């Protein structure tokens, strides 16, 4: 495929993704749900992909492009920090401390609990498989 075709293709796919974004905006405007419109657009797209209403090929180049440059898009909002110098105050440091402790706590508790749940799930799966085996062999004996 010539390169200019690839560029047009990517642009068209980005426009398709914009359509999903504006569907999200529309849903939020109508329902007043406290959700980011982009997340609603994401969910609509996942459902459409899952139901095969839209082919992955229709969005993959555009999505790949946008994801590749994603960090560029949040540089402007992040620069808004210059209007909030209070991050360098005592309260700002407490906030940062709270985030650090909370993150470490979350990793620890989630890691420990999910390891326990994971072992249970595996054990249950194995039991099920064994159960089906015995059922099948019983069936054969009759």
């Amino acid at each position, binding site marked *: 495929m010539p390169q200019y075709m690839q560029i047009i293709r990517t642009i068209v796919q980005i426009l398709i993704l914009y359509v999903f974004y504006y569907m999200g905006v529309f849903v939020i405007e109508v329902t007043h749900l406290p959700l980011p419109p982009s997340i609603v657009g994401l969910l609509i797209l996942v459902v459409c992909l899952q139901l095969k209403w839209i082919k992955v090929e229709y*969005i993959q180049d555009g*999505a790949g492009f946008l994801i590749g440059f994603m960090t560029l898009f949040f*540089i*402007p909002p992040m*620069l*808004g920090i210059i209007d909030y110098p209070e991050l360098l105050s005592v*309260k700002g440091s407490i*906030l940062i401390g*709270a985030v*650090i402790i909370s993150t470490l706590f979350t990793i620890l508790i989630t890691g420990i609990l999910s390891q326990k749940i994971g072992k249970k799930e595996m054990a249950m799966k194995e039991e099920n498989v064994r159960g089906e085996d015995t059922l099948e062999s019983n069936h054969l004996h009759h």
Partner: protein
Amino acid sequence: MKATIFIISTVVIFYLMSLLHKKYSYPYLLPILTSTIILIPLLLILDIPYAEYMEGGQYIQHLLGPAVVSLAYPLYNQRHLIGKYKYTILSGILIAMISGLISVFLISLLFKLEDSYILTALPKSLTTPVAMQVSETINGIPPLTAVLVMIAGFVGALLGPFMYKLGKITSPISRGISMGSASHGVGISKLKDYGEEDLSIGSLSMGLSAVVGAVICPVFVWIFF
């Protein structure tokens, strides 16, 4: 005219910083971090108010909406990973979201921080673009949220392995879930050292947390504020 200059200089600085990160892939050389560190003093020295910068910056920021929608693509591609450990992954993400919200909320209450600060900190475990949009939805301060998200990422990448030792967390699934749902992209970059399975479960968990967190955060705010 000025708007165009702001757009071009942001893109050029970001591009150069991406090249730098490609050459030396240290987490503290992430383009978002280095570009911001260059642009902030530049704006301050040249005495450009943020509102003026945003006359150009808004056009870049506008792409954030469809970019977040694009996250549906990797999420859809990774759906087969959920299969075998369905309950573990989904319950793990719920545990991470709830423990993350409650712990940061309680610490903030303990130190009597204002509501606007607490709301700003709540989405900290989500991936930056989603966290900023959630922050906006729940009336936090999005740029401040972005900084806290970065901090949560670095804490995970630097101190996460220590938590794994402390909690005797040895399975790749639980390492992936806990890092992906607490420290998003920056944290999971550390999982490369552990292996492919850690990394893929990590990025799946990051995507799912973004969606689950975007729903749970506003509900949490609705209940407690």
